[in-house]
């Protein structure tokens, strides 16, 4: 079984600011981490590899700037991925279909049996990538996976539905699946993992195709408050008295 895990480096800071051109955040001085949903996707792939115990391969793949890409691919290798692929790209792509077309072209020849991807990225949050790539590569697709089970040439996927429902579906391989958070406990890299990661193969690819964007982000802004919000600030004593006053006298929720 050849499993790809698609992952993305995400800016991690406490207070994000919009950049001067108002088209993205100011990421000049931020730290990057692996997109949280992708950590579950990676774990699920590693668990399948371990369970199958048959020389399956887990390949961590990302597209982005060199430094942050190196960082998250190293993390994936340290956790147990067998090799990495970095598709180098410094331009912001905000059309999910263009992103997926480039990605698909770069990994098509690998002929993966499975592609796992986090449900959505923290930054764009389109949640389309795994489905688009699956369709482009002629694979079956599923989203919101909260459980997986390999059955020879098929995979069974437990899908999260709305309002607390779940459902098992069975689909033929190859399949591209987006993974919901919480289905497993993503591991930490071991010291041995970190050491061995250094000797694992990381292929760096460059983009040689050009697709025109059909849609794109044009302007970032801070959401306007839709409500008349009363701010309650101060020391704990005052704040607590105020809250109790609201609960008791304004909303009459407590006697």
């Amino acid at each position, binding site marked *: 079984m050849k499993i790809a895990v698609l992952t993305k480096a995400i800016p991690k800071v406490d207070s994000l600011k919009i950049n001067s051109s108002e088209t993205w955040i100011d990421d000049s001085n931020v730290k990057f981490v692996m997109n949280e949903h992708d950590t579950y996707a990676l774990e699920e792939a590693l668990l399948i590899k371990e369970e199958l115990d048959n020389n399956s391969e887990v390949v961590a793949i990302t597209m982005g700037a060199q430094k942050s890409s190196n960082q998250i691919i190293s993390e994936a290798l340290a956790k147990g991925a067998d090799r990495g692929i970095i598709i180098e790209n410094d331009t912001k792509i905000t059309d999910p279909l263009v992103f997926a077309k480039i990605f698909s072209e770069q990994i098509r020849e690998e002929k993966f049996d499975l592609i796992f991807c986090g449900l959505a990225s923290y930054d764009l949050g389109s949640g*389309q990538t795994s489905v688009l790539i699956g369709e482009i590569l002629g694979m079956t697709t599923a989203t919101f996976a909260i459980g997986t089970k390999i059955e020879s040439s098929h995979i069974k996927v437990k899908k999260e*539905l709305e309002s607390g429902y779940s459902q098992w579906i069975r689909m033929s391989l190859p399949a591209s699946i987006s993974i919901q958070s919480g289905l497993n406990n993503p591991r930490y890299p071991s010291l041995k993992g970190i050491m061995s990661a250094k000797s694992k193969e990381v292929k760096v690819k460059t983009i040689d195709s050009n697709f025109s964007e*059909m*849609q794109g982000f044009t302007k*970032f*802004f801070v959401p*306007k408050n839709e409500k008349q*919000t009363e701010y309650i600030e101060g020391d704990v004593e005052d704040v607590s008295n105020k809250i109790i006053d609201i*609960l008791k006298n304004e909303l009459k929720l407590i006697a």
Partner: protein
Amino acid sequence: MILVVLENQRGKIHSFSREAVVAGQIFAKKYDEELCILCLGENVEVLKEEASEFESDKLLVAEHELISQYTSDGFSKALSEIIAQESPRFTIMGHTYIARDFLPRVSVKQDLPFIGDLTSVSFEDEKTIFCKQVFNAKFLTNIEMDPSIEKAILSFQSAAFDKDKIIKGSPKNIIDVKLNLKDSDVRITSEEAFKESDSDVDLSSANFIVSVGRGIESEDNIPMMEKFVENVGADLGSSRPVVDMGIMPKSRLVGSSGFTVSPDLYLAVGLSGAIQHVVAMKGSKKIMGINTDRDAPIFEIADYAVVGDLFEIIPELTKKLSDS
């Protein structure tokens, strides 16, 4: 043409679908296009009955045994065929789990942009400007189509349109669509949907809910919350990350994958207010947030924004309440 796709949710029309119809009626008017409503696959009879009360130019009914139960294979193939035939300017759906599951595939099949998860749209001169949340609802971004592109697939978040503004009436025409689906098109089989937990927690009818977010940090802090809710007579709810961390059971999840609630007061404690959470609780009569971050998205929809440390405020509240 503006094409609105209705969705079945366990035997009823999905509430997001009504909002999509409102969107469709608005787009049809703005663009001076025909409005066409599509009942696709699952449970078409119920959808057809609903749609017969909405004003539209055309009601398309697309039935086929291969789409009598939802699969992304069947639905993407069927909708793609209909789009190829009808060539709608915009195809509109609610931003539901199902829309997210198969619309990207239609986007590939028809090489159309899928502009999804939209919270609003504005029409300015020649331009249509879409808006969506990014960075976990911290910011919004405008999205525009390239001027050379005329057609797109859209999905709208709940409450982007007011479902009560639906124009009642009836379809001018009802047309059965012939679909060319083959057995080999559908490579996915589905089992029955089931409810994960048989817990008796029912937050949907609670009148006072206190929900914890990531700020609660650890399981060790839950007893403090339990003591507090007991003192104020509230029910304890949770956001997704807290469930993922195993701190709270999924049976107490408020969010698109859990309960949708509308209590008299929703008190969000250490909870940032990601979209999946907000869609399920913004119908609450009053919303109060306690958060150390003055810019937390939850405060944008809050009536009361308490800026402070939950680990100081909650015990103090409990103390005052049990003293009185």
